[in-house]
């Protein structure tokens, strides 16, 4: 069995902009995969190419082994896409929208699954409301529901939580996590890096149409981030000479040390005690994806 998504040598140019510049990427079945990058990095273009909305200049893409160009109908049955733009058809109610979307995929009697999706996305009370009358957050959840009507094994979410409040966001992620546990492959783009860090097992970072980092989330955190020790020394305390070289940030009295290993904390504290430095405040920061992101983007 091949990967859920296979992308080989995909390039796409829009006028003078090289939106995708030789992307190679495999996403395995059952993965929760993150696609990160600044605006204009090519994330949405890559997703659009996968969905058949954009035709690549070169390379090929496949979903569950089906080429998205030569075998597009089979590929599209395997894929559910939540688009980034908040779009809706103002002529229909929520339930009509989902029934029509089911029909597009050749599913006639989909009432039970539609009810389940509506319940999981907290939309049951709005089932017979016209799309125009929904709030932005509700419209966003209907977009998620539309992507799921045909129970696709691969689900791509392009910025699904933009404009969604915290409570609903948590509900949405609980549902998506459940789908992932049930075997669905999830690909996520988001600007909320803490979401990507907590959800994604593996992450690709894009910059100017190229993948500049690709690894498990744990490895990325290990490679590009680490624990940080922040100290505020008592007034008049002078930092011992050997420690000065290790300071990575200095804002007034607060000094930051980057740690490869947690045990280094003890070495630093030992040196401070030895020189009679008194500490007013101490804080240990955990590695985070934001730091990884900034470092990777600045490095390349």
């Amino acid at each position, binding site marked *: 069995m091949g990967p859920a998504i296979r992308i080989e040598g995909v390039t796409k140019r*829009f006028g003078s902009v090289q939106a995708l510049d030789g992307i190679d990427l495999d996403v395995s079945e059952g993965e929760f995969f993150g696609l990160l990058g600044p605006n204009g990095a090519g994330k949405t273009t890559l997703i*659009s190419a996968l*969905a*058949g*909305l*954009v*035709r690549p200049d070169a390379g090929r893409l496949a979903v569950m082994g089906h080429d998205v160009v030569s075998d*597009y*109908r*089979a590929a*599209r*049955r395997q*894929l559910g*896409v939540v*688009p980034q*733009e908040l*779009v*809706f*058809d*103002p*002529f*229909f109610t929520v339930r*009509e929208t989902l029934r*029509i*979307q*089911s*029909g*597009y*995929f*050749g*599913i*006639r009697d989909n009432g039970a699954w539609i009810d389940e999706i509506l319940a999981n996305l907290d939309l049951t009370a709005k089932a017979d409301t016209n799309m125009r009358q929904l709030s932005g957050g509700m419209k966003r959840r209907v977009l998620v529901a*539309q992507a799921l009507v*045909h129970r696709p094994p691969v689900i791509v979410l392009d910025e699904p939580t933009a404009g969604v409040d915290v409570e609903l966001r948590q509900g949405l992620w609980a549902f998506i996590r459940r789908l992932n546990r049930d075997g669905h492959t999830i690909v996520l783009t988001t600007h909320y890096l803490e979401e990507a860090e907590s959800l994604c097992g593996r992450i690709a970072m894009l910059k100017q149409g190229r993948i500049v980092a690709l690894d498990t989330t744990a490895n990325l955190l290990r490679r590009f981030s680490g624990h940080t020790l922040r100290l505020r020394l008592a007034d008049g305390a002078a930092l011992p000479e050997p420690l000065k070289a290790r300071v990575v940030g200095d804002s007034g009295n607060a000094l930051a040390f980057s740690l490869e290993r947690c045990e280094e904390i003890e070495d630093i504290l030992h040196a401070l005690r030895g020189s009679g430095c008194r500490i007013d405040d101490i804080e240990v920061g955990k590695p985070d994806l934001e730091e990884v992101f900034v470092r990777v983007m600045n490095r390349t």
Partner: protein
Amino acid sequence: MDGFLTLLYKEVLRFWKVSFQTVAAPILTALLFLLIFSHVLEKHVRVYENVSYTSFLVPGLGMMSLLQNAFANSSSSLIQSKVTGNIIFMLLPPISYAQFFAAFVLAAIARGIVVGLGVLLATVWLVDLSWQAPLWILVFALLGGAIMGALGVIAGIWADKFDQLAAFQNFIIMPLTFLSGVFYSIHSLPPFWQQVSHFNPIFYMIDGFRYGFFGVSDVSPLTSLAVVAGCFVALTAFTLWLLRIGYKLRA
């Protein structure tokens, strides 16, 4: 097959949900045309022997309404979907481009026939229609609706904004339908304009459709059928090609 049927159902439901605007209003417009033109011209114009001017007018107005509304249905649906972005819901599913074309064209025919039939039903008791060849009526109604539905798909795909679509509608479709012999026989025109009229495909749709009612026409119905069928085949091939290459729909 289900994807196609759903798209067809959705397109029909779309116009039916706003039927005051999409069905009742064009029927009323046609009735106003009939009222004014028949009042002014009934006693002054006789196009065919044994056919009053008002009777002559009714099938033409019915067909003109059918054609204009078939065009309006596919073109307005597509431009709205493009401008609002919800066209993505039709592009993501496994619907082939031929199914996409067929659904939009059949929905356009459906609206055209509902409006055209509405015009006929509202006026049939006012005039004397002899229904000489019902099959011709049906064939020209279907082919005319299909041609205008396909033109609507082309215009809807091509236009990036409502202004461009309005230009297509007002500067191409409207003059072609108004100058197609709805209100007169082209034999009443000077020779030059008679010749020009022969290059207007809508003239053949109206003339062939009217033949079905009265058994008389400006040109042979077989000629009209050949022209209309040829236009349909050419437009279908062109529209399918646009959809296949993804013109303005898939970047």
